[in-house]
């Protein structure tokens, strides 16, 4: 029954979503026709020549070189420039090419805007644009982490110890040491054993490296937890219930704060003592502990809301400032659509 309803509503929903994105496209097109237009990225190319030298230890160093230096290579970098800088350069020399629109970065900006809107669209309901964006995020993340793991772990930590000469010639000319390190065979072996989990026959072999990882991690964590989360936290709770200031006068607020911390810790601990029935003094302390816990959860929720609103504000700033050029709080373009409209209204009134 529910499948039949889904089948009937799916085309209507599809049309609704297409209509919504068409409305957004029309609004953006109208906005693009007003004033100085919408999001573009400007760049200026910086050209630097570098020459390499090799010292007596065989270490390669690159430094900036003058034009005409033999064997020097030229590196070009695109530096970001603002629309205001572009306009100033154009008014000084019309048709100049030093500062120009970067079309690949502009496409990136528009893709980022599309993906942002597509993620927001999930609030109205699941839809193909959201699914597409979600797939892109997952794919890019997986690919990125694979590249990071290869270049930051496998090459410098494993291959550089097993075949230093090859790695030095291939990708790390300044590699230190340079001798074969047999200890690196241990992580190599453990890694191969871990990969054997992918085969049905090798699952038991894969448990040995897992046991090594879990054991090492537990040992590492245990010491630090005992030091920082038990000993130091107990020390931080040993506070004077009657506090005095530097001049020896009674500090009322500090005393209240200290009493609250001590009472809060003891009552919250009382709540988690399950081997004693929560009756009488223990029961009352546990109820007070529940209040402290609730206030803690509320505070954590408040902080989470603050964080999420900050992230939402950052995405809106991206849409309004970088993409639609509605406002210009950083003064990068020198004019804004909203400011122009507001000043027109003020003038009219």
């Amino acid at each position: 029954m529910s499948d039949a309803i889904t089948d009937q509503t799916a085309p209507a929903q599809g049309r609704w979503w297409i209509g919504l994105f068409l409305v957004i496209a029309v609004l953006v097109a109208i906005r693009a026709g007003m004033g100085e237009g919408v999001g573009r990225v400007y760049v200026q190319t910086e050209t630097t020549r570098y020459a390499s030298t090799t010292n007596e230890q065989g270490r390669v160093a690159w430094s900036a070189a003058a034009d005409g230096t033999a064997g020097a290579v030229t590196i070009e970098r695109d530096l970001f420039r603002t629309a205001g800088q572009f306009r100033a350069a154009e008014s000084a020399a019309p048709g100049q090419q030093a500062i120009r629109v970067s079309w690949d970065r502009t496409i990136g900006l528009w893709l980022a805007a599309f993906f942002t809107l597509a993620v927001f669209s999930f609030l109205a309901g699941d839809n193909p644009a959201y699914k597409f964006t979600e797939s892109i995020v997952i794919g890019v993340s997986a690919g990125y982490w694979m590249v990071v793991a290869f270049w930051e772990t496998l090459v410098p930590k494993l291959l550089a110890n097993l075949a230093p000469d090859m790695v030095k010639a291939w990708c790390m000319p300044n590699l230190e040491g340079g001798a074969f390190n047999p200890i690196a065979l241990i992580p190599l072996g453990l890694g191969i054993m871990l990969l054997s989990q992918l085969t049905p026959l090798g699952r038991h072999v894969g448990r040995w490296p897992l046991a090594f990882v879990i054991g090492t991690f537990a040992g590492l964590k245990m010491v630090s937890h005992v030091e920082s989360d038990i000993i130091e936290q107990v020390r931080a709770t040993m506070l004077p219930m009657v506090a005095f200031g530097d001049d020896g006068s009674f500090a009322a607020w500090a005393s209240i704060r200290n009493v609250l911390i001590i009472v809060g810790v003891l009552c919250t601990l009382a709540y988690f003592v399950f081997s004693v029935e929560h009756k009488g003094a223990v029961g009352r302390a546990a109820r007070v502990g529940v209040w402290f816990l609730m206030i803690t959860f509320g505070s954590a929720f408040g902080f989470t809301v603050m964080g999420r609103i900050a992230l939402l504000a950052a995405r809106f700033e991206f849409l309004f400032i970088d993409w639609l050029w509605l406002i210009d709080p950083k003064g990068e373009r020198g004019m804004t659509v909203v400011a122009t409209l507001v000043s027109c209204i003020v003038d009219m009134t």
Partner: protein
Amino acid sequence: MSGLDRRWIYLAMMLAVALPILWNGVTGKTFPESPTPPSQACFDAIEALPEGSRVLVSFDYDPASEGELAPMATSFMRHLMHKRLKPVVIALWPLGPTKAEETIASVIKTDFPDRVNGKDFVNLGFQTGNEGVLKVIGTDFRKQFPVDRSGTPVDRLPIMDGITKAGDFPLVITISAGYPGGKEWVQYVSSSNPGLVLLAGVTGVQASQVYSYYPGQLRGMLAAIKGAAEYEALVSAAIDGDRVTAPKYTEARRRMAPQLFGHVLLIALIVLGNAMYFAQKRCKAVAP
């Protein structure tokens, strides 16, 4: 009320956040900020350092948390440069060095162009290993960070003279979005170096986990965008005085107006929802 389409709430939240941004973009006005003790402690810890001191700054975040943490990074870097301190930047997150480069370009290369890379500041890049990295730099810093981001050995960098372990830095700052971050710095570095001063700028989600370490194991703390705005105001007051602050140094304060209206809306919805719940319950109780 129970039948209210939740999309109306999303729309209301969108307006509560978007309209203050547009208002701020037109007027340029921000709300005043008065610092809380954790933010003031961050400011005081940096002020207390003598000129030329080296400070270890760890960029433990990526673009997903940039909205909260980038303003903190900008203010920290501006304050360090103004005090003529020398930041040594590392990262426990793969995209941390890129975020650090953006901050260096925006603050140091633009407003402090006389500072020399390798002498007055350096970016040593990312190292994989999470708490393993922190455990090792506690005893041998150069083993984990043998070269800077451009491949220059740290032995050749004047800024690294005499630095052998994390405890050699009088001050460590972590700008942290999660794991590994503020908590791990406390567990693996602060606890094993009692004289070391540790400051943390953390996201809202992380703040409640890290708060218990303040003020003992963490000397100061910037909690979410509110902490960033407070610290930004302190740094602006110290550096700019009565002059107008450059817009790039008011980013956190600009995001406080959306915070205010977003929170007011949320509180109103919670109060309204509870009032409706109790009203309905009462109606059911009196109904025959």
